[in-house]
């Protein structure tokens, strides 16, 4: 499974644990699953965890930006969690660090 969704109704948070390689081929299925969880839960915070993502090209930027727009429409936020150095580099190139919070969770799976 490229995406594992954890919903926390109390905190109004959806966490999507992404894994594997994010490219144009795989991104569509990932964003469909994340969007389904957003539509069902209407969270105020969406956490995208990149801890298990081994590769990402600019398709991952499209994925984060698309979710950022969706969450903005809900007056919500996006937090990008546990990206590798390489993924951070791709995200910085796109200026994603200005749109979404980026950081590490102190423990895997702990929400900010």
């Amino acid at each position, binding site marked *: 499974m490229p995406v594992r969704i954890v919903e926390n109704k109390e905190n109004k948070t959806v966490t999507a644990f992404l894994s594997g*390689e994010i*490219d*144009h*081929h795989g*991104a*569509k299925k990932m*964003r469909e699953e994340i969007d389904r969880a957003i539509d069902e839960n209407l969270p105020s915070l969406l956490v995208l965890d990149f801890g298990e993502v081994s*590769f*990402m*090209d*600019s*398709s991952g*930027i*499209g*994925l984060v*930006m*698309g979710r950022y*727009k969706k969450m903005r429409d809900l007056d919500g936020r996006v937090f990008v969690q546990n990206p590798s*150095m*390489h993924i951070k*580099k*791709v995200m910085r*190139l*796109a200026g994603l660090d200005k749109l979404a919070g980026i950081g590490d969770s102190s423990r895997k799976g702990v929400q900010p």
Partner: protein
Amino acid sequence: MKVLNEMKITFPSKSVNEGYARLAVAAFASQLDPPVDELADVKTAVSEAVTNCIVHAYPDKVGKIEICARIFENGEFYVKVKDYGCGIEDVKKAMEPLFTTCKNGERAGLGFAVMESFMDKLSVRSKVGRGTCVVMRKKFSQRG
């Protein structure tokens, strides 16, 4: 400059081949013993170039994508990604960061920006109706 080694692959523009293409090129480039992060740069740049062929060069059909990679005597790594698709009318405009013809908002318009930033040199030649050829070069830093 003398070519020390060369590889060529040809495959159809199916999105499932994006992973194959970047891994094949990275495996070939590994002969130069590049640092891990610089090899990731090459994988990302190739992934962008191949995705452009699949999404833009052949929007409504499956066409041929050719990759040729070379290792030069001076340690420079060269990779060419070529298609015979629709071509780009205005290459300069297509290369502007965030420019995209994609309507659904899920493509960031950063393909060429990634290639330019992650590789040392990028050149793009294109003819409408004939296809596009992207050439990228990178010299890996020596591991101390």
